[in-house]
């Protein structure tokens, strides 16, 4: 049994883990940078260690400092949260070497699934459908051309080590290959220190659907109702919901079965998410996130399962309290409140929170590290709060979401709050099942009364 967990993260996810520890009777250790001296994760943990200056490289990514903090405080496990070191196989390996339990899968599994090409190979091996494309890496523009001749255009070149759209290029015909290959490879090299790329069919009108899994590493596996994360801006998720609206039952079941197959093949341990694209009635594996995700509360609200408690249970060797296919009760939706100004090109906002009163009442959950007076620093990501709502139906969840967004009082910084209200007013979103192009296909306009609305810019909405 784990007695003390060091939380190698900050912000709302650090709080999330600290809350779970407290509820399980596990002691928690916060680590913090000098910029986070007044952060709630530092204040609410049982112990706290300053690990470096504000820069993430010197603090939340500073492996020696974090390991030292764990050793000094006698922590027997480290929970990495998401981001920072959560999918860093080397960090997991160091934890293993130092006899500190890394809350997550083995470093081997992280490394295997962190590389897109090897993850695709695992999918192929286990019969999980992948997007038609190159068989592994493409090492030249000529190889890209060969794949194009085989599966047709448009294609997309993607960075093997990538994510967030970096090192990604759409190729609409053969004569675009040379330029696209060169720039994608260069960008990937610059962003990830690895210029390897691969090629896939470019799918249009696609939806991002993912399946949360839990596994105890001893054959026990649980899958959860799929989440739809198609509302994205520049590959950053903004709204997530579960179940995915309007998905055919066979696609739903197919994805969950594929996720379970992958997890069993990997001998997976802990929480993970298998991500798919869904287009033209088919689903294809894209990648697996070998960690807790930002949007995990959507699944928690729709199933009643505490995923972080389960993670800690597995890491403690106590196994899972759930198994098989967890049923969805009603509908849940998450809205990410980011410190970005939607009226000015999503310009990041920093500075003090002047007034903060999160919404309450039935079916509302807020995960946030904010309080009035907290200063949003420029060093870290822009997520301020997650608002998650739960109701019997998707329609009721949307109304609850609008109600809660409406009463969410956060003064001092511009946030994505008015964008979410605009999304909830959009007819296509309300019908459900929009594609990942949803936001790109629309413009944000002021309605003249201080509110925003979305206007489709000519192109038909999904």
């Amino acid at each position, binding site marked *: 049994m784990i007695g003390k967990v060091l939380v190698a993260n900050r912000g709302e996810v650090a709080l999330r883990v600290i809350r779970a520890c407290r509820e399980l009777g596990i002691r928690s250790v916060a680590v913090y940078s000098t910029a986070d*001296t007044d952060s709630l994760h530092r204040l609410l943990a049982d112990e706290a260690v300053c690990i470096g200056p504000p820069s993430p490289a010197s603090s939340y990514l500073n492996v020696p400092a974090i390991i030292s903090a764990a050793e000094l405080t006698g922590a027997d496990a480290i929970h990495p949260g998401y981001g920072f070191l959560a999918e860093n196989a080397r960090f997991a390996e160091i934890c293993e070497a130092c006899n500190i339990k890394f809350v997550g899968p083995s470093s081997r599994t992280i490394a295997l699934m962190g590389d897109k090409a090897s993850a695709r190979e695992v999918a192929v091996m286990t019969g999980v459908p992948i997007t038609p494309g190159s068989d592994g890496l493409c090492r030249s523009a000529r190889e890209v051309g060969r794949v194009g001749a085989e599966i047709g255009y448009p294609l997309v070149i993607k960075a093997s080590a990538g994510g967030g759209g970096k090192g990604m290029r759409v190729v609409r015909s053969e004569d675009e290959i040379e330029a696209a290959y060169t720039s994608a490879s260069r960008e990937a090299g610059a962003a990830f220190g690895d210029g390897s790329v691969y090629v896939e069919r470019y799918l249009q009108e696609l939806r991002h659907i993912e399946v949360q899994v839990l596994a105890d590493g001893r054959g026990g596996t649980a899958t959860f109702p799929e989440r739809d994360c198609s509302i994205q801006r520049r590959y950053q998720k903004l709204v997530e919901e579960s179940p995915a609206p309007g998905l055919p039952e066979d696609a739903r079941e197919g994805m969950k079965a594929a996720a379970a197959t992958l997890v069993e093949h990997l001998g997976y341990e802990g929480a993970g998410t298998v991500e798919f694209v869904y287009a033209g009635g088919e689903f294809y594996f894209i990648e697996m996130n070998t960690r807790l995700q930002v949007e995990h509360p959507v699944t928690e609200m729709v199933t009643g399962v505490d995923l972080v408690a389960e993670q800690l249970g597995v890491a403690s060797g106590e196994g899972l309290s759930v198994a098989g296919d967890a049923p969805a009760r009603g509908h849940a939706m998450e809205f990410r409140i980011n410190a970005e100004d939607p009226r000015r090109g999503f310009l990041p906002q920093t500075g003090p929170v002047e007034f903060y009163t999160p919404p309450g009442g039935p079916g509302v959950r807020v995960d946030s590290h904010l309080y009035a007076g907290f200063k949003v620093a420029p060093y870290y990501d822009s997520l301020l709060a997650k608002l998650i709502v739960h109701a019997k139906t998707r329609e009721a969840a949307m109304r609850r979401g609008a109600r809660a967004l409406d009463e969410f009082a956060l003064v001092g910084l511009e946030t994505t709050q008015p964008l979410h209200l605009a999304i909830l007013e959009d007819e296509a979103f309300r019908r459900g099942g929009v594609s990942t192009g949803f936001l790109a296909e629309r413009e944000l306009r002021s309605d003249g009364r201080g509110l925003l609305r979305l206007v489709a810019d000519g192109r038909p909405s999904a």
Partner: protein
Amino acid sequence: MSDSGSTREHSKAGLPLDDVGRLVELLAESGVGEIRVRQGELEITVKAKAEAPAEQPAPQAAARVEAVPEVGAPAELPAERNGDLHMVRSPVVGTFYRAPAPGEGPYVEVGDRVKVGQTLCIVEAMKLMNEIPADSSGEIVEILAENAKGVEYDQPLFNIRPEV
């Protein structure tokens, strides 16, 4: 809850009113808005009259917040209190050792004169022995961390009275 360093024990005696007085002077003279000193269990706050928007009170999450024990409290031990002293802080998280090896004498003692670059102590992190050099020449007037105990990033280790 438990305290974890000798610095915490500093003050079981009377109130350090001289310190407060000096802070008030400092505040009045300096024209700054607020001075707060917390050292282990001791905390002194001096604020100027608010002219500008009022400060929000800090979040007080029930009694637990006050009970957070820490390896040290780096950010709150302000340099101001030390007047002309120069403070040497830990650049890494680790274990503080005053001597190069067990059984050997300490690198420095209070009263020693040190030169820039001279090793003052070791902070061990992940089996690496980080020698911490003096970044000011002068006299060691205070050793602020305890031998073989953990130190945080930025935690004060020594006070040096610089040579003039």
